[in-house]
């Protein structure tokens, strides 16, 4: 087949296909990874369902079925949140792999975005049977209309972009210090509490929910889950998408700025 895709769309298409080929070579490893990842939400889910049971069927108005819906959607959103991390940056700088990327006429972020996006398609295919089993076991309550489904499909990619951009910016700290893991741990802890990963944001105390509202984490986790598993109004659905767009803009700007300064430093110091 003759393809004449050129420019960035061409690059994305080729890299995404490459990622799919690569990841399908590691079906077993990917499955083991996915199954391991299921343990975390299942623990949360069992805890909250138990609490709900002991409080007459609901916690702060969230029923056991709604908790099940939340944490099953969680498993997919968590996979959309897998991006190129600062650990990857450490490796890239220490082993000089970045040099190879810098002499190519394309910004390396495109490669990472495309590669991890391609990987998602493999993950989604592998996730479907796991989700089916979880549905059978935990009996979630879903009430999804077409608009919510559509917004969800956009929101999970918005979540992917936000987390990719922010972690790319954080990873670039490696330009200054070759150990960025401590900062990443800090980011990770804040994210765990304020994104909706550990518990639905509705269960946070008021002040913490306010903090979560003004940080990007919520838009990578809690918001896309709520779109499908929660009860957001049409206005809230679109406001969420709008705020995701804002955070994508902020992330892109941050990446551009840190990249400009960081590459200058890298080029001054070498590796």
């Amino acid at each position, binding site marked *: 087949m003759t393809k004449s895709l*050129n420019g960035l769309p061409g690059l994305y298409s080729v890299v995404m296909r490459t990622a799919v080929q690569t990841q399908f070579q590691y079906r077993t490893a990917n499955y083991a990874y996915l199954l391991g990842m299921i343990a975390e939400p299942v623990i949360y889910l069992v805890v909250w369902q138990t609490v709900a049971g002991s409080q007459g069927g609901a916690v702060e108005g969230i029923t056991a079925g709604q908790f099940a819906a939340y944490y099953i959607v969680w498993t997919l959103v968590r996979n959309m949140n897998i991006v190129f991390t600062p650990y990857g940056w450490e490796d890239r700088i220490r082993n000089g792999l970045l040099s190879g990327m810098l*002499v190519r*006429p394309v910004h390396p972020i495109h490669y990472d975005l495309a590669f991890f996006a391609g990987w998602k398609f493999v993950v989604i295919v592998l996730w479907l049977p796991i989700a089916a089993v979880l549905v059978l076991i935990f009996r979630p309550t879903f009430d999804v209309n077409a608009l919510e489904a559509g917004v969800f499909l956009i929101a999970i990619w918005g979540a992917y972009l936000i987390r990719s951009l922010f972690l790319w910016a954080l990873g670039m700290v490696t330009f200054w210090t070759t150990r960025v893991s401590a900062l990443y741990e800090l980011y990770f802890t804040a994210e765990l509490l304020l994104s909706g990963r550990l518990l639905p944001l509705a269960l946070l105390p008021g002040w913490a929910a306010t903090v979560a509202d003004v940080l990007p984490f919520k838009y990578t986790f809690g918001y896309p889950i709520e779109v499908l598993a929660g009860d957001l109004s049409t206005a809230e659905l679109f406001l969420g998408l709008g705020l995701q767009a804002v955070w994508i803009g902020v992330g892109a700007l941050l990446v551009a700025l840190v990249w400009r300064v960081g590459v200058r430093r890298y080029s001054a110091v070498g590796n």
Partner: protein
Amino acid sequence: MPEPTPVDIRVSELRKTFRVPEREAGLRASVRSLVRRTYRDVDAVAGVSFDIPAGQIVGFLGPNGAGKTTTLKMLSGLLFPTSGEISVLGHVPSRRERDYLRRMTLVMGNRNQLQWDIPALDSFEMNRAIYRIPEADFRRTRDEIVELLEIGDLVRKPVRTLSLGERMKAEIAASLLHRPQILYLDEPTIGLDVTMQKRIRSFLAEYNRRYGATVLLTSHYMADVQALCKRVIIIDSGSILYDGGLRELSTRYSPHQTVNVVLGETAPDLSGYGEVLSSVDGRISLKVAKADTSSVAARLLAAFQVSDLTIEDPPIEDVIEQVFAAVPRSAATSAEPVPR
């Protein structure tokens, strides 16, 4: 009058100074360095200048730490020079303009750019997208390179299953698909067996002939340099010691040749003809001043029953050693460590 060959690479007074933290070994020094760090300025490249005309292959030689790789990195845009100027194909490399990056390639022997888990052919596709190579050109160049390097079978296997040499060939193929005009090759044959080295050498010579590419090559293998480069630049401690023809290098720095004679009789004393390097079973090697080799050969042929006589230039490694010995090493580092 013929048109002068255009200059592809122009380097003037290029300098790169690194600030390197340093401390003594041990716990005490480690704790002290928390409070007061000591740095030393190291001139990795200390003001080098050269021009390379289009289509020339130049060998860039020197011991480890001489400044070769740092210079290549500045030429390819990976490092900003501390001072001095570089112009390659009219571009300033450190700006890393896409037009420039599309016209050059940097091959570093120990860096892996191919995707590990998939066949090289798929990585080639990725390069087509990265360099925006039109489909027809891509196929033509890819097939040509695959044929020249004889890697038709290799490129269909996952890269992780290839041997070091096979991978290197695939790496070189990947880095030339966009048909770069400028090639920076840093130890392209490192760790490869002799046959594989030879294959890569003849491939590079053919690529240069076919596309008129300009090549700057570093290698510790003199065979690479002798096979490919008419001109060499020798660098040590960041400064150029020699820039000129490979043949002239030998003339200038090694005024001697070796005359080997095989005599049909018991070896006589030949010390009157030159310095006797060895004498075993009638096979005698003499070190003779270049200017005298013809007359010494003639005298030997006249005086003895000579069954064989050869005249050899000294090995290029020895000549280069002579260069290092002849030129005093410049002080590459500043006198005292500077606390900051």
